[in-house]
């Protein structure tokens, strides 16, 4: 059974996933070209590099890896003619729990990525690019390698691509199995053959001191695929699909207690949580009620069913007023989710129904983060394992009165104090689970 429903929901608009799981569609270059492939690249090489960057900016494309940084702005940090080698590194280390969109692109439509990558390389004067694929996708690495060879043979990449005078080499690099490699500077260290420790920022911002200390762009797989479509359908049209701050479409991965988990693609801001769960994903399992949603990958703060958020919004007379926003009516877009205290992240939506024990669920996440903490800096290294040990003990009936408070303190002492965002990633679940489901933790503490 495919993770992609054969018939798109009316709310959906499939651009990135257009060819995923399509009968008769293969990962080879002939299929790709027969479906209109590499036309955007042909167009790109007739444009000025700055025009391409302007288009990406005008399209309001935000990064799809989790942080949501505006893509065109990221590219414009690279000075076209600074005389230094530039690198583009594709982050294919998709490892945030609940996120499984890039794997479909890499496995089924690799040329979409290669085309987007070639366009971005042309726009930023980058002659060498790496596609970093997580160790757990060995098959994808082979498929992408093959696609690179095909594209090279047809002159879409390599020397003097499409007669443009521009050269581009692309290599696949396979990770060794660490979540931290999804953090862009850790990824760069790993690519350089070192232990994947995130770099301190400042000074090591990839755009300045990136791979081999040269200006580097690190983009998510899906993000680069969008670039192709921006040129294909035009920046204005693309931007119009989404919200003012978030253009185009956005893929979502829904997992957990819904009838139809899987991958979906919507125009940005097109669905609410209610629509996503009860309409698109076929609702909850029979007899179950909704308990919670983690909207943006495992590190996003959890939302409790039935919550009503106070947000600022425009009143009928145009002035800003406080509004009540019920949890189910929250629109799945970056700014709305941020305004209710969580995040769009990697759009890995995890749905939990009333059969779930929140201490168990948090312990599951804590064990993951304790296992994946790289161990470089103190708070995350020591705190992540400590939290995991505590929730394990609470689950085993060894809870103590002070546990919720101690858990809270540990998380507070990690968030905002670490080298990379892993600190937040591992403490936000604890902070939000405790805040949203205090009664379950108090109960476990009394056991």
């Amino acid at each position, binding site marked *: 059974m495919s993770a992609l429903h054969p018939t798109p929901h009316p709310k959906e608009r499939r651009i990135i996933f257009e060819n995923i799981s399509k009968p008769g569609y293969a990962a080879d270059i002939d299929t790709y070209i027969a479906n209109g492939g590499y036309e955007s690249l042909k167009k790109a090489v007739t444009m000025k590099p700055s025009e391409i960057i302007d288009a990406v900016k005008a399209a309001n494309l935000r990064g799809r890896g989790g942080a949501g940084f505006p893509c065109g702005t990221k590219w414009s940090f690279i000075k076209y003619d600074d005389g230094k080698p530039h690198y583009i590194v594709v982050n294919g280390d998709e490892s945030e729990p609940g996120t499984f969109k890039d794997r479909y692109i890499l496995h089924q439509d690799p040329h979409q990525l290669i085309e987007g990558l070639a366009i971005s390389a042309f726009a930023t004067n980058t002659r060498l690019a790496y596609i970093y694929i997580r160790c757990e996708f060995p098959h994808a690495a082979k498929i992408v390698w093959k696609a690179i060879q095909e594209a090279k043979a047809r002159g879409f990449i390599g020397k003097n691509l499409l007669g443009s005078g521009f050269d581009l080499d692309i290599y696949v690099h396979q990770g060794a199995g*660490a979540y931290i490699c999804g953090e862009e500077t850790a990824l760069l260290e790993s690519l350089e053959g070192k*232990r994947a420790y995130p770099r*301190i920022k*400042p*000074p090591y911002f990839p755009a300045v001191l990136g791979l081999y200390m040269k200006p580097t762009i690190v983009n998510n797989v899906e993000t680069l695929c969008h670039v192709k479509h921006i040129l294909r359908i035009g920046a204005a049209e693309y931007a119009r699909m989404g919200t003012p701050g978030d253009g185009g479409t956005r893929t979502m991965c829904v997992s957990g207690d819904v009838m139809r988990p899987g991958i979906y693609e919507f125009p940005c801001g097109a669905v609410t949580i209610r629509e996503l769960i009860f309409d698109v994903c076929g609702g909850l399992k029979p007899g179950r009620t909704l308990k919670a949603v983690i909207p943006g990958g495992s590190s996003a703060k959890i939302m409790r069913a039935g919550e009503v958020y106070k947000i600022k919004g425009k009143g009928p007379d145009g002035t800003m007023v406080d509004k009540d926003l019920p949890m189910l009516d929250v629109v799945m877009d970056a700014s709305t989710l941020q305004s209710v205290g969580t995040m769009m992240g990697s759009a890995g939506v995890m749905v939990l129904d009333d059969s779930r024990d929140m201490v168990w669920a948090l312990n599951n996440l804590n064990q993951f983060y*304790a*296992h*994946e*903490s*790289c*161990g*470089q*800096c*103190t*708070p995350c*290294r*020591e*705190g*992540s*394992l*400590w939290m995991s*040990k*505590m929730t394990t*003990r609470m689950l085993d009936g*060894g809870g*103590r009165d*002070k546990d919720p408070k*101690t858990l809270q*303190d540990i998380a*507070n*002492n990690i968030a*905002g*104090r*670490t*080298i990379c965002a892993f600190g937040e990633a591992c403490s936000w679940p604890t902070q939000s689970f405790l805040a949203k489901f205090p009664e379950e933790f108090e109960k476990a503490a009394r056991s």
Partner: protein
Amino acid sequence: MSGTAVTMVNVQVDGEWKQFPKGMRLIEACMQSGKFIPHYCYHPKLSSPGNCRMCLVELGMPKMTPDRKSVLGEDGRPELSWSPRPVISCATEVSEGMGVRTSSPLVEECRNGVMEFLLINHPLDCPICDKAGECRLQEFSVEFGKGESRLLEEKVKKPKRVDIGERIVLDDERCIMCSRCIRFMQEIAKDDVLGFLNRGSHTTLAVYPGKRLDSNYSLNTVDICPVGALTSKDFRFKMRVWFLKETKSIDVTCGTGSNIVISSRENIVRRITPRENDAVNSCWMPDSHRLNFHYLHSDDRLKEPAVRGLESPVAWKTALATAAEKLRGSRPEETAVIASARMTLEELFLVRRLAAALGVRNVDILPRPQKGDGFLVSDDGNPNTSGAKLLGLATGRLPEIAQAIEAGRVTKLVVLGEDAADCGISETALKSLDLLVAMGFLANKTTPHATVVLPSSAWAEKRGSMINVKGRLQRLNQAIQPPGQARDDWEILRDLIALLAGTNGLHSIEEVFRQVAAETPALQGLTLSRIGDLGIQL
């Protein structure tokens, strides 16, 4: 810094505006302002990895107007906008208009948090840990720790007593993963053998497969280890550090003259550690040099004066009188003096006086050329060749002297601080000498043949000065007393000279130095105390 213009920037430290050179690390600016910032991974001579998170501070940047000008307050200083997120002061460089808070509630909270994290998996084995007393974790626990543990679970178990090198033992449970040792081996020793294994809380310091921490600089990692993870096999379990008396001195193993601290207790030297001096050895020293002290307490020490034919104990007076008696009136061409460039400037000065009193031209020191390592092991195995040269004692005449002794033309020999056997003089020749006066602190191949043996003091037992290969005048200081009847070299020489040439009015080492300075243009105006702890470049 001289000659190059340094841009100074204004930085507000805890409310006070101060100036620092642009690019200085913020932690250094704070410390320079008297604000101590606790830290583990930061080390002034190493790169900043920013991993311990102990040096988090609050950072303010100037508020900017839309046209990128800083907003000035009533005092004409930039108004600051404070980041809610603390930053590491070790990897932040000072810049114009920056502000820092080093002791705000947030900063205190950060430190408390980091301390708790570092302690939850740290074994509380301070009672048997060599680092206790000079352990940063222990120190900062007192200042920033909680005094109780909230960890109810088991601590992480890691390897203990790991033999990672010839001279070093690793306890991984004590390690706080600051990576100082790793960076030292990469950046300073240039022998990249250390790294981390595993992940998260199970991160474990180790040597790479097939590698050992055997560099001649390995023990510096013990010095900079903020905890007791890396310990010196030589010092392990020998002494609680708080009992050690610390004496500032210099290493005499080679011409570098690395600055050292001699740690001793009850007249026994327990360890030597490097002392920071950026003009000489930075914070480091070679293992070969720091471990080169055990002979101070060997059974070969000369403890009593001896005169051939007299039953011991012989009084100093008798020994010196015998030597003077036999030297007096000897013909200059039949007499030679071999001194040592391991002697201090003061001692060598008195050697020159002795030679003058005897009218002897046959004077030299034993040179010790060797292959250095391009870093802190010098090409010169003598610590004071420059001093001997300055005093005109490095004459190069030693082969000639040895030949004359072998040929029987020189029949009276004074050997000071050296072994004649090392100078190309055979045992047969030594046996046939009419007079052999040997001054030194260790028995050697010369002493059995000596007419008079004058036991002197080793470098840790006396004061004085030396000039290193780069022309830096530095001081030795006395850490312990010489054993038995052994005396300070300069006193022995002074007394001998007095017997030969009359009183010379030298009553203290300071007076000797003053005499040296008076007779040596390069040392004009200097006194022993003016040399200071870090020495003076001549």
